[in-house]
């Protein structure tokens, strides 16, 4: 047998029963190339691949036209679909290439890892979180690092604790073990001796393991490796004679010396529990940026686009790559010339030379790009990161596949909630007091969060109302949307939570965050609510925009008062409300200065709404502080008159100002020395919403009466629009009563004496005119 070196199996055994172990790095381009080259040499009669056997049913799709990478195999617990693991592949994944090779040449292929059902059962027994469980919580990581495919053999190993490769990297003078592996094993040009490559990998791992170096997941690995060895033995017993094994490099030594380790393995496998967990498996379309998640293989990469480029153009030294970079920059309207590309390439080459590399890697490319094309500004690299370094590829999966868990959950809910999917537009009125309608509303809100626009809310969901009107229209593309969201979670609740958290991670302003929380609340996503509350709290600490803080307070107050929330959250919400409120009290007086007409109106509206919101909370100390803040505003000079009137009215309603005080302020605001427009503005602020006060309070009535009477006709005409804006909002009944009261003139007996005929100042003619006019605008 040519060029096969397996030192542990004796020669005779070897000839009749050849096993070749191909240790790889998941998603390693060099590994994939070597695997292909080696398989081509070997032409094995069986290929074993690392991965749970539940996936065996769906490996047949690899290589078919209907399945396009990047795609992931999904394993899920059929009873609890929330429990799931993804095994993502790109075209350059060694496992993908190995299985593709097998399918193409009709070679049987088997997954050889511990069954997922057993792993879940074990973690269940341990009462601990397994890495598989941890995947449930994957939150998209940012591609902070420019390169770095994450670690290679064992799941989630931080450097250096539990990262065995670090020992070799350190000897070679590297501080980054990934980079060392990359340079040593993945950036290969020469594929003439793949056997040597795998022997080197094997030797290295053997050395590490014999030296007792530990990987972070050794405990689990013992059983997994025992199982893999068992599968290998079984295949040998089935008389396969030329077996190729594709597995993470770290596992290779465990699959050597099968005779010696048999007893030990049998012992380890005895501990395995029995399980009734049923595991489903299917393909899901994947995207390049999700290849960076550490999932089933525990290995993610941050630059799939770069690896794809290496896979497609193995001979490119960087010219082609940098030309692509330049094209993208040009598309984004940056002036990049061919000279830039040339200079960047020269720099990348010099850098590689300085670092003793045979060819520039992604790091050198990125550094050269930033230095030559972006004025050293790495932020501009973000422009190429998504399109080129990560890549926008979206996989496709066969339509004939079994349904995804999220899809199944979605369909079950539509059945339960009796919501047929019809293309016809339909209006649905919900009464949230009934359980079914409430559940429907939650369901719609969750879909809304997931950007599946089946139902649109058309009726206002106001505070304290229990009615919602939804418009339903089902489009076939929504099925695809449901499938696509499958990567976020296996139930609607789960997926919506993660999707929302992802959005929240990108949100920067309090406004955005409070918009998110106001959909999270009706969607009853408690986990997301909690996380977003935390973010709002942090954002509030640095925000100087009081209006934004006030905007954020409103939905929270609603939630604190009416929300259907768990008790622990309720306490957190109240703490947050108090924090926000305190910041608002301190900042509000300053925020009321120097506002133009439009901003003043906005602030006016906000103050009224915050006032309402705080009153519903029934927290006495909050209200007292609030009123104190309002009092501070109302007596300041330089704030817009509409806010002065508004605060005065709110304080009067709260009985902080008694009648005399209110009357004094009313008189002051309407006194002759004031600019007429300011007075009208003040009046608007004071009266907006309700004119009843004028009907019952004769003192105020007389003050207003006097003001209208004394005002110059031309000025009055100018003020009409403002006054009309104020008075036209009153109810018809109110306006009628006010008109009748106006006809009778000012009220005698209210301690003014204004209507005293002896008062020489009173111009009756003018009064009549004013009366006529005010009657007109009240009824027009």
């Amino acid at each position, binding site marked *: 047998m040519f060029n096969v070196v397996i030192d542990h199996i004796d020669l005779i055994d070897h000839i009749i029963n050849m096993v070749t172990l191909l240790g790889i790095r998941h998603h390693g381009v060099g590994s994939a190339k070597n695997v292909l080259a080696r398989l081509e040499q070997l032409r094995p009669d069986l290929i074993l691949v690392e991965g749970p056997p539940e996936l065996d049913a769906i490996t047949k799709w690899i290589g078919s036209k209907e399945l396009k990478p990047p795609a992931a195999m999904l394993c899920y617990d059929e009873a609890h679909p929330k429990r799931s693991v993804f095994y993502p592949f790109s075209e350059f994944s060694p496992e993908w290439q190995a299985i593709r090779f097998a399918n193409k040449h009709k070679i049987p292929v088997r997954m050889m890892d511990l069954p997922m059902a057993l792993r879940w059962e074990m973690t269940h027994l341990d009462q601990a979180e397994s890495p598989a469980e941890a995947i449930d919580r994957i939150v998209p990581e940012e591609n902070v690092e420019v390169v770095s495919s994450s670690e290679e053999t064992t799941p989630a190993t931080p450097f250096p604790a539990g990262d065995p490769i670090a020992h070799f990297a350190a000897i070679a003078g590297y501080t980054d073990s990934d980079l060392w592996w990359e340079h040593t094993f993945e950036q290969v040009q020469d594929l003439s001796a793949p056997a040597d490559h795998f022997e080197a990998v094997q030797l290295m791992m053997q050395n590490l393991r014999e030296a007792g170096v530990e990987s972070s997941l050794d405990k689990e690995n013992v059983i997994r490796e025992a199982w893999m060895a068992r599968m290998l033995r079984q295949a040998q017993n089935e008389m396969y004679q030329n077996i190729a094994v594709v597995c993470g490099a770290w596992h290779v030594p465990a699959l050597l010396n099968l005779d010696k380790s048999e007893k030990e393995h049998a012992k380890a496998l005895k501990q395995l529990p029995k399980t009734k967990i049923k595991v489903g498996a299917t393909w899901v379309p994947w995207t390049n940026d999700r290849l960076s998640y550490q999932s089933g293989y525990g290995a993610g990469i941050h630059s799939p686009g770069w690896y794809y480029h290496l896979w497609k153009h193995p001979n490119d030294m960087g010219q082609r790559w940098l030309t692509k970079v330049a094209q993208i920059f040009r598309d984004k309207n940056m002036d990049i010339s061919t000279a830039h590309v040339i200079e960047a390439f020269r*720099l990348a080459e010099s850098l590689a*030379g*300085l670092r003793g590399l045979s060819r520039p890697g992604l790091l050198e490319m990125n550094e050269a790009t930033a230095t*030559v094309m972006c004025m*050293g500004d790495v932020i501009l690299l973000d422009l190429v990161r998504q399109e080129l370094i990560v890549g926008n590829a979206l996989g496709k999966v066969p339509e004939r596949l079994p349904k995804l868990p999220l899809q199944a959950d979605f369909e079950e809910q539509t059945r339960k909630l009796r919501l047929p999917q019809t293309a016809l537009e339909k209006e649905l009125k919900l009464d949230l007091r009934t359980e079914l309608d409430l559940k429907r509303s939650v369901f719609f809100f969750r879909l809304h969060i997931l950007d599946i626009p089946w139902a649109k809310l058309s009726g206002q969901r106001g505070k304290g109302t229990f009615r919602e009107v939804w418009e339903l229209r089902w489009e076939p593309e929504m099925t695809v949307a449901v499938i696509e969201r499958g990567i976020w979670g296996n139930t609607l609740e789960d997926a919506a939570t993660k999707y929302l958290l992802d959005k929240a991670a990108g949100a920067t302003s309090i406004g955005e965050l409070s918009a998110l929380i106001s959909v999270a609340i009706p969607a009853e996503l408690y986990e997301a609510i909690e996380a977003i509350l935390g973010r709002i709290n942090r954002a509030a600490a*640095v925000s100087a925009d009081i209006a934004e803080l006030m905007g954020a307070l409103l939905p929270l107050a609603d939630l604190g008062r009416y929300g259907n929330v768990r008790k622990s959250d309720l306490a957190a919400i109240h703490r947050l409300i108090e924090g926000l409120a305190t910041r608002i009290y301190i900042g509000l007086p300053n925020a009321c200065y120097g506002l133009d007409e439009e901003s003043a109106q906005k602030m006016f509206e906000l103050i009224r709404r915050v006032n309402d919101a705080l009153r519903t909370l029934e927290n006495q100390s909050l209200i007292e502080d609030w009123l104190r803040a309002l009092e501070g505003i109302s007596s300041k000079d330089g704030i817009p008159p509409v806010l002065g009137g508004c605060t005065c009215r709110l304080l009067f309603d709260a009985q902080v100002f008694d009648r005399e005080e209110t009357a004094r302020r009313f008189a002051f605001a309407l006194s002759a020395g004031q600019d007429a427009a300011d007075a009208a503005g003040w009046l608007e602020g004071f009266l907006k919403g309700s004119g009843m006060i004028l009907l019952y309070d004769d003192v105020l009535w007389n003050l207003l009466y006097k003001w209208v009477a004394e005002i110059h006709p031309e000025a009055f005409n100018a003020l009409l629009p403002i006054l009309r804006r104020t008075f036209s909002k009153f109810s018809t009944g109110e306006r009628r009563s006010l008109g009748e009261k106006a006809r009778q003139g000012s009220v005698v007996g209210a301690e003014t004496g204004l209507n005293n005929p002896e008062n020489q100042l009173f111009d009756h003619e003018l009064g009549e005119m004013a009366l006529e006019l005010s009657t007109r605008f009240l009824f027009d």
Partner: protein
Amino acid sequence: MRTLLRQHAEDQYAHELEELIKQDSGQRPPNWKMSPRSVIVYLMGGKLKNGFQVSPKYIGNVRLMEIAVATLTTDRALLLYGLPGTAKSWVSEHLAAAISGKSTLLIQGTAGTGEEAIRYGWNYARLLAEGPSEGALVETPMMRAMRDGAIARVEELTRISSDVQDTLITILSEKTLPVPELNLEVQATEGFNVIATANNRDKGVNELSGALKRRFNTVILPVPESIQEEVEIVQRRVDSLSKAYKLPAEAPALKEIQRIVTIFRELRAGVTADGKTKLKVPSGSMSTAEAISVVNSGLALAAHFGDGRLNAQDLAAGIVGAVVKDPVQDKVVWNEYLETVVKTREDWRDVYRACKEINV
């Protein structure tokens, strides 16, 4: 004998340069005193084969220095860009010292820098007496660098007005400096290159023209990444400076330096070191260079007016001065920081009291 207040890099570290050149086995670009690898070792520090210890000049990311050195091996000029106080000039001086053996071919950019400071000037007495002649020509550092194949340095490039900046274009692309009056030109010898520095905060003052930008590779020098890194920089610089300035005070306590660096970092990043509390950020740049000068002035205070030991009182004035650049906004930021962060730290009582006394 007169002693210099401050020595050039190539004099202060002459023994290190000498040793590096002796031990150098790498390939040297033409007219370089040492190989690019050795330049990196000179900048970042390290142990040579014979056990000689080279002190680090730049503490930070080695990759940035590699980019800078790799740039100079190509014929593109290097632009060091960054906030004030991120060691741009320091790096430029040491690069020139290591590559050309001299850091003195320096053009200081100011708003008043004219073309004759970059290209050439005339000795007017001789110009009048002899008419245009080579003898009447006054060479600039740039011209000399071109003749000698050395590194020329331009400090604060963006302070120079745009039309004067553009005189660099021919020099950088054609590598030649024509003197039309004498009908001759100075062509650059191999090894010639330019290191310019520019300031982030001056952005837009005299923005580089597109043509000039294209002739520079830009390396942005960041603020220090970790607190250890920054403490080390401050300690190292203060040690060497107080030697130079002869401050008799006791060597600064590491504790004080750590506290200062912590204050600077927290305010710069807008978050406390434990990541728990968000902070407002003052308008100043809060650079490492400022931290160094705070420690230095503290040392001077301690030496001349205090008990010779650096303590919180000596530092407080400097810190407050560094933070409060804008009397209204920064004051709020500082007071908030003092009350919510400094006050709550048990072992920072003295800092709190000292800063309170100054009371901006």
